[in-house]
């Protein structure tokens, strides 16, 4: 796995997340690493990407010189629309999100805790960007995946016993994907279910402040499924 060992950590996370996306589903990707997930999906899968600002069927960047200011993603960047796309107002867009019509959201994280609760919208006294659509996404999506670098800059653990940062929602996320591991929050805590190529269980534990439950051998991430 020389290739994957050299892989950029963000690319590795995006690639692993892509394997979680099912055909013919409605998916919302957050800003940052989550945005990269779509690069690893086959356009023939029938996945429609929704953006909070009101598009179902967002496509990649338009051809050079053909972007238009009436069509952007939730970060304000120019995008295209795939054949079969639809555009909707903000109330409808959040109706899809809150109403349980969104099959999956992949979001970045600042902290995730033992209960599977996510904090990703502010660092009091340091950075207050606002929650944007994150609280609705985490509350309403059928499935929530947190895609993030395992530790903060400086090595501070981001997977912790209890979030010290303000929570995004009181909902257990479904999966945590980092460049070191795949972790599934369950009733009894955080299950370490995969490690990245070349990463040991002990290394994951050392970089994680929360307890990790390990049942039997932990397989290595399968990064071959995505394109």
């Amino acid at each position, binding site marked *: 796995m020389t290739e994957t060992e050299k892989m950029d950590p963000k690319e590795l996370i995006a690639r692993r997340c892509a394997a979680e996306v099912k055909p*013919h589903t*409605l998916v919302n990707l957050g800003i940052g690493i989550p945005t990269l997930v779509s690069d690893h999906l086959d356009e023939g899968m*029938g996945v*429609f990407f*929704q953006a909070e600002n009101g*598009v*179902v*069927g967002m496509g990649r960047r338009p051809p050079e010189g053909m972007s238009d200011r009436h069509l952007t993603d939730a970060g304000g960047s120019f995008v295209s*629309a795939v*054949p*079969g*796309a*639809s*555009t*909707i107002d903000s*109330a409808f867009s*959040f*109706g*899809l*999100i*809150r*109403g*349980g*019509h969104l099959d999956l959201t992949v979001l970045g994280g600042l902290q995730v805790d033992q209960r599977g609760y996510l904090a990703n919208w502010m660092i009091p006294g340091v950075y207050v960007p606002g929650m944007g659509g994150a609280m609705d996404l985490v*509350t*309403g999506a059928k499935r929530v995946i947190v895609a993030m670098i395992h530790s903060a800059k400086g090595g501070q653990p981001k997977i912790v016993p209890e979030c010290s940062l303000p929570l995004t929602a009181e909902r257990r996320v479904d999966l945590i994907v980092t460049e070191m591991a795949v972790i599934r929050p369950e009733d009894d805590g955080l299950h370490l279910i995969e490690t990245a190529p070349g990463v040991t269980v002990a290394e994951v534990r050392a970089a994680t402040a929360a307890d990790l439950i390990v049942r039997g051998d932990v397989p290595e991430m399968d990064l071959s499924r995505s394109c």
Partner: protein
Amino acid sequence: MYQALTVDEAVELIPDGASVMLSGFMGVGTPDRMVRALADAGKKDLTVIVNDAARPDRGVGPLVAARCLRKFIGSHIGLNPDVQEQMREGTLEVELVPQGTLVERIRAAGVGLGGVLTPTGLGTKVAEGKQVIEVEGKPYLLEPPLGADFALIAARSCDYVGNLTYMLTATNFNPIMALAGRVVIAEPEEIVPVGMIPPDAVKTPGALVNHVIRRVA
């Protein structure tokens, strides 16, 4: 996200006793082929959520006439003597809901809200037994969300990924009910290639539609 089904295949998906939303206003914008097939199939004990009882031969009428319903939830039944008769007999339970409250209760279920706070119905029979919530000094009735097992949608056009459009006043409850059925079945008048419905013209994104009824052969 959807499959094209025959009307009979779609009807088979709907079991006796199911709750079914049916769009339409006095039969305008009602999926008539589905209604007739459900009546012909002799479905029993359905709960139907629909704006009005229309007339015996229109809208939900054929389902009432065939005695497929156990419960009717809607805003108006004045022009369908079958409903009045079955209500008097005690074989059909009728829940009358103000029309604006009805559509907001359906929307609330569809968009994940916990209910509707409306001034409509305060001080009337509609308020009986319901909670009144005060917000900023004004009273509102708390009306619960209203979802259903199935939403049967009458569309003008449908493309291959299930995007729907509606025409003029045949729109009515359709786009709202398409949010609130656990299974959404669309009966379009025409099926067109992807791209024929521009993004801004789509009224119901295909992501909400589970099944599409084939066109008449």
